[in-house]
């Protein structure tokens, strides 16, 4: 049925796709501060509001910290809130990211992935959002602009069911400023898919409640004699919500497919004839990995590609299933946990621990600060990883870098 839907293809860059998605999601409060490469998204949203195309409050805040503070408070009076940022902006927001997740507010944030200084760099890598890994947000990464528009809409649906904020991440310039064909969903379909926001907490003088009060470590009795959660229990509930959000994310993907005819899961798995070698990458890099896999196949090397879509909650079981036949896993990371390795590599290793899969894992750090990542480089790195299997070390302690040192 879905396949019979008339498509509405436009040539859009990633920022335009995100702006259209926010508009289609009928956001009610937008607060954002311009930062490269997110700026055109901010401008587009203010354009929609000023031109009367979107019935929302656009707040041109004086900082990203304030952007998220506007979103948290707007969300608490019952408004659907959206913001977008990049890099230093996201880092500046850090405190409020914790606050939004801790208060269980279904805010959606578009993160246009960009490197973090010092030194200054405005180009792409994923260090910004990876640095916010432990703030309690769901993180979704996009491979192309179609996934941006679809994921922002899905993000509101997911966030409002599980009461956890969602960060939709897409690579700066590579997606944000690159035009490609995008099928724009129909507003009536989006309205069907995404009902109006029903807040679970509303600040209202006729029913006064006090939110985010000082909360003790241990449970405490209320005036009515009811035992209420301590801080530790509230943290447990946030963890539980993220753990359980996997099912909601998959469900949101399936229902999206029913309405719009595009299927989404927590990852993208390109199986290649039972390949024993798998390349893992996240975001637009996963598309480059598919090109690299094709080039390797021409040389007679069979490789599967695992494109990570949801980074938090990390889809351990699904990743293990996808990697079950792998003997060698080559993980490319556009981020680095200094002193350790790439963040997605750590996740893969953690997911595989205790399973019967005893694959060798090679981690390559690529594309930091906008360094171009060529498919040929992914091919060469994969061949190097294959060659290294003869060495005695199964899993090296530290990643290799594709750079000129």
């Amino acid at each position, binding site marked *: 049925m879905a396949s019979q839907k008339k498509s509405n293809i436009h040539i859009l860059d990633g920022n335009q796709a995100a702006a259209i998605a926010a508009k289609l999601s009928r956001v*009610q*409060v937008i*607060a954002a501060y311009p930062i490269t490469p997110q700026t055109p998204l901010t401008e587009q949203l203010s354009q929609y509001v000023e031109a009367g195309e979107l*019935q*929302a*409050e656009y*707040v*041109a*805040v*004086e*900082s990203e*910290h*304030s*952007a998220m*503070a*506007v*979103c*948290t*408070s*707007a*969300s*608490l*009076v*019952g*408004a659907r*809130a959206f913001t977008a940022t990049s890099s230093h902006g996201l880092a500046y927001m850090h*405190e*409020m990211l914790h*606050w939004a997740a801790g208060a269980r507010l279904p805010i959606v944030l578009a993160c246009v992935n960009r490197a973090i200084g010092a030194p200054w760099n405005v180009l792409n890598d994923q260090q910004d959002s990876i640095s916010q890994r432990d703030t309690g947000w769901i993180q979704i990464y996009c491979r192309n602009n179609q996934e941006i528009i679809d994921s922002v809409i899905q993000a509101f649906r997911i966030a409002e069911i599980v009461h956890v904020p969602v960060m939709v991440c897409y690579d700066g310039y590579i997606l944000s400023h690159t035009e490609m064909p995008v099928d724009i969903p129909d507003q009536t379909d989006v309205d069907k898919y995404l009902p109006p926001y029903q807040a679970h907490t509303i*600040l*209202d*003088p006729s*029913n*006064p*409640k*006090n*939110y*985010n*009060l*000082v*909360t*003790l470590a241990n449970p*405490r009795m*209320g*005036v009515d004699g*009811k035992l*209420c959660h301590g801080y530790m229990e509230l943290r447990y509930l946030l963890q539980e919500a993220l753990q359980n959000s996997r099912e909601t994310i998959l469900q949101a993907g399936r229902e999206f497919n029913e309405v719009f005819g595009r299927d989404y899961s927590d990852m993208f798995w390109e199986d290649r004839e039972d390949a024993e070698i798998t390349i893992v990458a996240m975001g637009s890099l996963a598309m480059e990995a598919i090109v690299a896999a094709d080039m390797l196949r021409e040389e007679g090397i069979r490789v599967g590609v695992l494109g990570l879509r949801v980074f938090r909650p990390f889809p351990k079981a699904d990743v293990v299933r996808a990697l079950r036949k792998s003997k060698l896993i080559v993980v490319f990371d556009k981020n680095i946990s200094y002193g350790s390795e790439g963040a997605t590599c750590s996740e893969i290793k953690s997911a595989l621990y205790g399973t019967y899969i005893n694959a060798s894992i090679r981690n390559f750090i690529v594309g930091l600060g906008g360094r171009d990542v060529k498919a040929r480089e992914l091919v060469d790195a994969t061949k190097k990883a294959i060659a290294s299997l003869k060495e005695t070390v199964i899993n090296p302690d530290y990643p290799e870098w594709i750079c000129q040192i």
Partner: protein
Amino acid sequence: MKTNAVNLIEQEWILPGNRTCPGCALSLAYRHTLKALEGQCIVTVPASCATVLHGMYPITAVNVPCVNTPFASTGASATGLVAGLKALGKKGITVLAFAGDGGTHDIGIQSLSGAAERQYDFIYMCYDNEGYMNTGNQRSGSTPLGAVSGTTPVLGKQQYQKDMTAIMEAHGLPYVATCSASYPLDLYEKVKKARTIEGTRFIHVHTPCPPGWLFPFSDTIRMGEMAVETGLVVLYEIEDDIFRLTSASESLARKGGTLQPVREYFISQGRFKTITEEQIDELQNWVNTRWKHCLHRATNL
């Protein structure tokens, strides 16, 4: 009709037995603020003594809806409440930001200035106990010259207070006022007036702090009065650029404008134990100059 102790609204929005220290002026100021708003408000509170007043989950001492927000974000949080209410078409609710001097003069000045420049429709009330009292009294941008604190422990503060009300006036706000917890009816009238005005309204409240300033718990009201009688605190309001002295400051001006010497105020508080004669003279000159300026500016004498 002017409000007095007899006809002041009886309903309370701060419940008895809150967690503030004995003699806390902040709870007095907050109490009369909520009376003036008749509880028809949503409050945002940053990390501060007001957080302590509000209580510990699941028990709160305050009977109005409230959101606690991180230290630097009060102005933005108020903006978000206003934007959210507007987006949902909810009317008739006053948004009140209630922050201390640390959260206003220092860490919160950016988000407050941003919100005021955008002219978002809320009342921002800064209760000023002249230091970081919630963390046990460290210097703030509002700690007076000569005051000893946890971070000015030996010499006392070497700088003057930041005039936050003047900074807010410079934002071109429709209503700016100063109050003292020792003059609650003046405060009540000002909040009541602010409630009827649209745009960002800024109200500064002087709130003496017995444990931080080192004076007996029973002397809070007297300390606030002395601050006004000496001219260290001047009660005024500026509505559409019209400056009016109010309450005790207005009476002082009408009675010839003679202030009490500041010395008495300083020797009654332990925090000024290291203040020098030169500093007292300096402060007296500063007070005299500012008072003259206020008398000159006042349109209601």
